[in-house]
């Protein structure tokens, strides 16, 4: 059941350049599934900001978000501190169907601020006994985060645009080299990356997670639609039907 809660910030850490990890206390933490997001209200901003769930600690009733400063809203969010409260709508949107899927080997492909939801996904897959291979892309060394955490879950490869860390280039370059045998891939990141990845892995089954500017975040305003491959005059809502879609379901523009 979707709810609005005022929840406390338990910790607020800078983990990479312009990148922050925030742990939040919520009785609904355990309801949050990999791929879902929370819709965060910020003082003096008209609209909420969607941020993915990057991890859940069911026992502690906490969940984690990781975000990068992009504009005014995320800058403001970066200035909150442990002990402050956030007004959050949760849980929002669809999730990676970890429970339902049958698979042995998963490829995780993330770029930039698309990486956070994939950590919670990778952890859940691993807990289910799935082998996880991860390929992550970042702008540069200073922006890399969560590499060690992913490594604990399986083989992890990093690409940076400028080559200051890992492989110079794109996640697709690494995937070409690895050409791993997988059952499913799961990808989240900027649209150009998703386009490249879904093209490259067109033969594979996969799920992707999309971003769009949102109004309501709950499915009422039609701000966040994406056209369907089957019939481009039809659309789905990223905030409600997504953000997770089957890779061939939607048209990436």
């Amino acid at each position, binding site marked *: 059941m*979707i709810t609005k809660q005022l929840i406390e910030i338990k910790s607020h850490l800078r983990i990479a350049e312009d990148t922050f990890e925030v742990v939040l206390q919520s009785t609904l933490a355990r309801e949050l599934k990999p791929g879902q997001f929370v819709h965060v209200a910020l003082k003096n*901003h*008209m*609209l909420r900001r969607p941020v993915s769930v990057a991890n859940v600690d069911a026992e502690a009733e906490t969940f984690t978000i990781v975000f990068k400063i992009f504009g005014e809203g995320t800058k403001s969010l970066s200035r909150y501190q442990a002990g402050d409260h956030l007004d959050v*709508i949760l849980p929002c949107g669809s999730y990676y169907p970890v429970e339902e899927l049958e698979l042995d080997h998963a490829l995780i492909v993330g770029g930039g601020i698309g990486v956070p939801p994939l950590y919670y996904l990778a952890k859940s897959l691993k807990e289910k006994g799935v082998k996880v291979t991860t390929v992550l892309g970042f702008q540069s060394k200073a922006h890399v985060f969560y590499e060690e955490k992913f490594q604990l879950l399986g083989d992890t490869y990093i690409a940076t645009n400028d080559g200051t860390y890992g492989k110079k280039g794109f996640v697709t370059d690494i995937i070409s080299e690895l050409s791993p045998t997988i059952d499913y891939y799961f990808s989240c990141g900027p649209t150009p990356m998703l386009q490249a990845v879904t093209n490259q892995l067109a033969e594979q089954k996969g799920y992707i997670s999309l971003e*769009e500017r949102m109004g*309501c975040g709950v499915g009422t305003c039609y701000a966040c639609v994406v056209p369907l491959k089957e019939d481009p005059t039809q*659309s789905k809502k990223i905030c409600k039907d997504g953000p997770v879609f089957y890779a061939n379901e939607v048209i990436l*523009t």
Partner: protein
Amino acid sequence: MNLTTTLPGLSLKNPVMPASGCFGFGKEYSQFYDLSDLGAIIVKAATGQARYGNPTPRVAETTSGMLNAIGLQNPGVDAIIKEELPFLRSYDTPVIANVAGSTVEEYVQVTKALNHSQDIAAIELNISCPNVKEGGVQFGTDPELAKEVTYQVKQASNYPVYVKLSPNVSNIVTMAKAVTDAGADGLSMINTLTGMQINLKQRKPIIANKTGGLSGPAIKPIAIRMVYEVRQALDIPIIGMGGIITAEDALEFLLAGANAVAVGTANFQNPLACPEIIQELPRVLEQYGFQSVEEAIGKGHVNG
């Protein structure tokens, strides 16, 4: 505290309703609270056929407001009648359908289709959508066209007709008079003001449609002025809206002359905006010396 207010075809338990396009068809917000708490519900625009709407991005944030250019995306009036409206039956709150179109014929078609629905209590005639190329803007800014479409829709409708006015005009009273003369049962005002925001990085408008409709607290002074001017000139019921966030804002619209109020953008910021305003309203009315909602209506007018 007596919160009731009466408008043509609408006996409302309180004067607060969500505005069209900001509440879908009610399902999503029914997860947050009991929709029976609402004075009424204005649902998303209906057109003759299904519409895809505009490309994305469709929204942008502005200082104390937002821009939207949804472009009237909706599944078409027949699907709305069959698949969306029945859900609202279980709630004890009147539903107002929002009628849109590109031609007078389409407006009339939608209106006639809605005659067959038992799930609504009134229609809101949307001649003010700034985000569609054809129809919308023209009807809302040309008094003659506004008159014509109002007259035709009024002829076609079994339900009371509230005409939703555009603020993008030099003289709101002229527009209000035109549609009143044509038989409108009430007015709904205001729709959004046409605006734009440019993305400095991308060097182009953020909204794919380039322009979008500005809503939220930024526009409240314009909405209050227009409601006040129309109330001064005409004796027609008004549903007031534009930037309402708090019960104080709602009272300001009542004082300006609105008989009821609608809440749009605030729902996005706070899904509980409507019930919270309704809950606060008695305290706020009392604080400013009013015994009822009816008593406050029009009381902000000097000389009358």
